[in-house]
């Protein structure tokens, strides 16, 4: 026999001097790390993923989690991770599954871009006292406006009035350019979905359903919800299409471009089966492509089909993963009657993705926004279609930089989950989430207090909104529209010429 265990990544210790044997950790840990034996808490460190549920709940701060300091003979190429993966895969012969976003050390361009502020000339604005416009409209804008001039008699006087002749397409009205990304019910718990729905309604913004259908409990928030059509077409019927504020066609996802989705049968509970409209316990498989879309023309056909089904009253978005030729694809989407293109960068999160995809496929969102914005400008259609960016947006500065690079608004996913308690332990696909977020187990789901979680998410969006206003004010801008694609307000630090060119920005000092 070849021993094939990989050493535990973490080491869990319970300080016996502090521990009062309340067994809270035993109850809280859904991974089975703890067991009481006599007057001692026994730990199984190999099961720990450092999700900190136990640490957060221990009344005596008795628990510490360390990186397991076990020594692997150092090697610059054969890293610990490389060796561990081989041990695991040679044991099972299977694809490595992982959660969360890209975990490799690629450059984070957001952190190599700095912002501008006013000094002396063009004075800065104090948003606490002066109006600051963050309202954003997502959807198709007309090429030009046409008016009818009619003479009307008002109080005996003949007055010439201009009436808008151009038909304006339906748009989503956002009070802040931050929306919550599509994370399906099935991957996430119903409580997590309810919390996010309440939060977006409170903040005057929107959330996505993901491809798992729309649970009835979310119907009261449907005017703040964007429904999604993916290749599996789960839970899609007329009701679903007309309930939401917009519909998004999901072509690809930043965490796993080019492949479909796969919700394992064990996560398809009675409730999940109801919204996905598939039998309980069966796998929910989304094929890699939409089999009615093999070309840009076919995509246009689905866009128009959805428009027809909703009588052209609902905006249609198309979401693609940021890949090498993202600009050309986005341009194709722009010609298809779609109202917005969503670009998801390679650091975007996921409930489950093959590790090889999560860590290796796709391009950085910063580059993708810049490329798409430029291409659409060159084609003369940028003003007609909205760009929504997502994939690894961690704070208000990332939002601000995304908009300055050319996005209209952003989607946040992981950030909203962290607000609800997620500690980014990356084991979402196991359905064991101790925080009640990425699980369907009722006893775990109940841990997530909807009211409190919704407050946290709303707080986060509000805090970022305030910061964006401050940043805008400092830049001497009083409307988010003037920031959009305003790359002159960005400078690169430590970037080479090619990177600067791709981002369309100057280096600091120039």
């Amino acid at each position: 026999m070849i021993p094939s265990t990989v050493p535990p990544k973490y080491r869990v210790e319970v300080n016996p001097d502090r521990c009062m044997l309340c067994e809270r950790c035993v109850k809280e840990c859904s991974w089975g790390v703890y067991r009481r034996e006599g007057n001692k808490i026994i730990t199984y460190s190999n099961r720990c993923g450092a999700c900190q549920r136990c640490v957060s709940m221990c009344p005596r701060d008795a628990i510490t989690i360390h990186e397991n300091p076990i020594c692997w003979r150092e090697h610059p190429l054969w890293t610990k991770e490389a060796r561990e993966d081989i041990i695991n895969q040679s044991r099972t012969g299977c694809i490595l599954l992982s959660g969360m976003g890209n975990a490799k050390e690629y450059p984070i361009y957001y952190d190599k871009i700095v912002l501008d502020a006013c000094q002396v000339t063009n004075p800065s604005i104090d948003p606490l006292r002066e109006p600051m416009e963050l309202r954003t409209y997502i959807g198709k804008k007309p090429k030009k406006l046409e008016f009818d001039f009619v003479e009307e008699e008002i109080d005996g006087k003949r007055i010439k009035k201009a009436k808008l002749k151009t038909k304006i397409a339906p748009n989503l009205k956002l009070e802040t350019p931050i929306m919550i990304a599509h994370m399906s019910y099935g991957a996430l718990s119903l409580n997590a979905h309810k919390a996010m729905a309440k939060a977006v309604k409170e903040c005057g913004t929107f959330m996505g359903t993901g491809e798992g259908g729309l649970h009835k409990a979310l119907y009261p928030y449907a005017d703040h919800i964007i429904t999604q059509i993916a290749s599996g077409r789960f839970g899609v019927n007329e009701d679903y299409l007309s309930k939401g504020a917009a519909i998004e066609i999901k072509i690809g996802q930043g965490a796993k471009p080019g492949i479909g989705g796969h919700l394992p049968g064990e996560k398809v509970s009675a409730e999940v089966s109801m919204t996905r409209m598939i039998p309980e316990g069966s796998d929910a498989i989304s094929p890699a492509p939409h089999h009615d879309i093999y070309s840009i023309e076919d995509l246009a056909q689905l866009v128009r089909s959805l428009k027809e089904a909703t009588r052209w009253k609902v905006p249609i978005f198309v979401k693609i993963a940021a890949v090498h030729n993202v600009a050309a694809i986005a341009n194709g989407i722009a010609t298809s009657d779609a109202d917005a293109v969503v670009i998801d960068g390679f650091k975007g999160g996921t409930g489950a993705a093959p590790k090889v995809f999560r860590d290796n496929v796709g391009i950085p969102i910063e580059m993708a926004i810049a490329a798409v914005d430029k291409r659409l400008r060159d084609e003369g259609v940028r003003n007609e279609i909205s760009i929504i960016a997502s994939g690894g947006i961690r704070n208000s500065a990332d939002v601000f930089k995304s908009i300055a690079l050319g996005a209209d608004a952003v989607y946040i996913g992981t950030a909203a989950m962290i607000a609800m308690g997620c500690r980014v332990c990356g084991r979402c696909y196991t359905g064991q989430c101790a925080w009640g977020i990425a699980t369907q187990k009722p006893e775990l789901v109940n841990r997530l207090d909807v009211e409190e979680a919704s407050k946290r998410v709303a707080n986060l969006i509000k805090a970022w909104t305030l910061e964006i206003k401050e940043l805008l004010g400092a830049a001497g801008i009083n409307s988010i529209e003037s920031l959009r694609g305003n790359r002159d307000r960005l400078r690169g630090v430590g970037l080479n010429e090619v990177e600067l060119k791709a981002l369309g920005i100057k280096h600091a000092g120039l």
Partner: protein
Amino acid sequence: MEKVKENMEVILDAKDLEYRELNEKIHKILNENPNVKKIILKNVLGQRFIGNGIQKKGLIIEIYGVPGGDLGMFMNGPTIIVHGNTDHAPGNTMDDGKIIIHGSGGDVTGHSMRGGKIFVRGNVGYRSGIHMKEYKDKFPVLVVGRTAKDFLGEYMAGGIIVVLNIDNKGNDLGKIKGKMIGTGIHGGSIYIRGKIDESQLGVAADIKEFTEEDRKRITPYIEEFCKEFGLSDELKNKLINSEYTKIAPISKRPFGKLYTPDLR
């Protein structure tokens, strides 16, 4: 505006109409005459999305000509009768209702169908019945008169597909040539009249014994097919009493053992 006759029938000439104009007219008729029973479309030539998203039980839309793609997509309730062929994806993500095609159906006929029935007298194209799925009383049925191209019932998750394998006169067409039948299938069943070899199946599909129970299951759909296309009792009895190959999933979870958790 087209006049609604006393028998609640409207005739619409689709000649030179763009798809939006045509569909707008259909919606207008439905809005203004909630009791309309039948809409007859003449000279249809490639207009897409006919019947798209219409929710109306009992309504009949009769089409003369060749409708474009996504016929009856998201439809819930109506019956569409096509006197001609259809472009790709008739019955796409259809919820309920019936589509009767006297000619042939294009590729991905019945794509992601959730309920209702599609009867095609002629052939269907590649990947027909892909990702059909059932849930409780929603049970999609696709019956094909002649034959189907490759990848029939790909990723199928529920419902029934029946391929009758007869020509326009009711003669046997010989062994079906389709490959990769039921690839990725994880629910529902496919019945093909005649023999199918294991080598024609895709991954996750399996040939199961065709039992009398199965015959009982498909008989009502064959009867309905014969009635819709006016086939003789003799032919009907031949179809009902023929030997079929039943193709069903090996398991509900064909890809359950594909992954190694990245846990340490």
